[in-house]
């Protein structure tokens, strides 16, 4: 299981275009749908827990690993997600001066960013579907939170707090 976690995240690491959140949908596909290591509800709640904590978004992956296989799982999934991409960044970093402003780099970035945005959207919709499975009313909270993050520059933590309060009232 620990090795399986490493392999899953290592293979995601090198194709996670535009950051970790864009691979959220794929992580759900692998951990929940293919392997059944997590159920929908736990997946959504662990992700939420990681969002409520400070630090890079990629750490949700560490939390999934921890939940599935304890500390070895945490180490395996974190290393799997960070090592391949980090190694690549290390070597490319050496070329940074030569690469800067290169037209090919601009085209790669310009071509991949729309893809990353689409993938992030898919991850968000997957999570929203998970949350809605426990009552359609939660779609309202999700929509409010989406609008808040989109239209304002306040910290999204306000929305997490709002969701928590609403959960307490309704639950």
């Amino acid at each position, binding site marked *: 299981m620990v090795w399986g976690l490493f392999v899953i995240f290592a293979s995601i690491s090198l*194709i996670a275009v535009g*950051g970790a959140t864009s691979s959220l*949908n794929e992580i759900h596909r692998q951990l929940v749908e293919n392997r059944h290591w997590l159920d929908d509800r736990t997946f959504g709640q662990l992700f*939420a827990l990681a969002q409520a*904590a400070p630090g890079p978004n990629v750490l949700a992956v560490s939390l999934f690993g921890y939940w599935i296989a304890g500390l070895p799982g945490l180490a395996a999934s974190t290393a799997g997600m960070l090592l391949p991409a*980090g190694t690549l960044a290390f070597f490319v970093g050496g070329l940074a001066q030569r690469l800067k402003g290169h037209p090919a780099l601009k085209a790669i970035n310009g*071509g991949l960013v729309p*893809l990353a945005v689409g993938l992030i959207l898919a991850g968000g919709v997957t*999570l929203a579907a998970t949350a809605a499975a426990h009552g359609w009313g939660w779609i309202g909270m999700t929509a409010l939170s989406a609008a808040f993050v989109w239209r304002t520059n306040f910290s999204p933590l306000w929305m997490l707090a709002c969701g928590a*309060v609403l959960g307490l009232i309704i639950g």
Partner: protein
Amino acid sequence: MNETVVPTRGELFLGYAKAGLFGFGGVAAWARRIIVEERRWLTEREYAEVLGLGQVLPGPNVGNAAVMIGRRFHGLPGSLCATAGLYIGPLCILLLLAAFYDAYGQVPRIGALMQGIAAAAAGMVIGTAIKMGSRLKAPPEMVALGLLAAAAAFWWRVPLPLIVLGLGPVGIFCAWRRQRPEAAH
């Protein structure tokens, strides 16, 4: 821009530790503030270049930037110090939260509270996608490509490698064609 300062390995670790611990909802803004404004390791322009490269590479953007900035000052040990600083503090907090969730997650009221946070977190991700997408001012074919990627991932449950390897080259080709006429002038 003012002159920049070369950080020691310990300073790399501490600076990134601060960015990690202060970075609620993502560390990008704090990392820039600490590296450019507060500690002056890099100028605004240099940082933007590193971050831009970090965005092109797969994996976490700010994590990639940490690897490259660490390397720039102290080689591999620098990369390791910056990376360790970025992740260690948040990981510890996350473990505490996980222990709390493990102990109380089954309590109905806590479960309901977590359900509310989960619904809001889903909205956070969707809102981020919309915000990023609307800032891009992407041409129609790029909008279509992004939506196609979203549909493939969410609706048809296509594995990520197929999406990236299938649509990535199309996107890069489109972007390349768009920038060519400008280069000709």
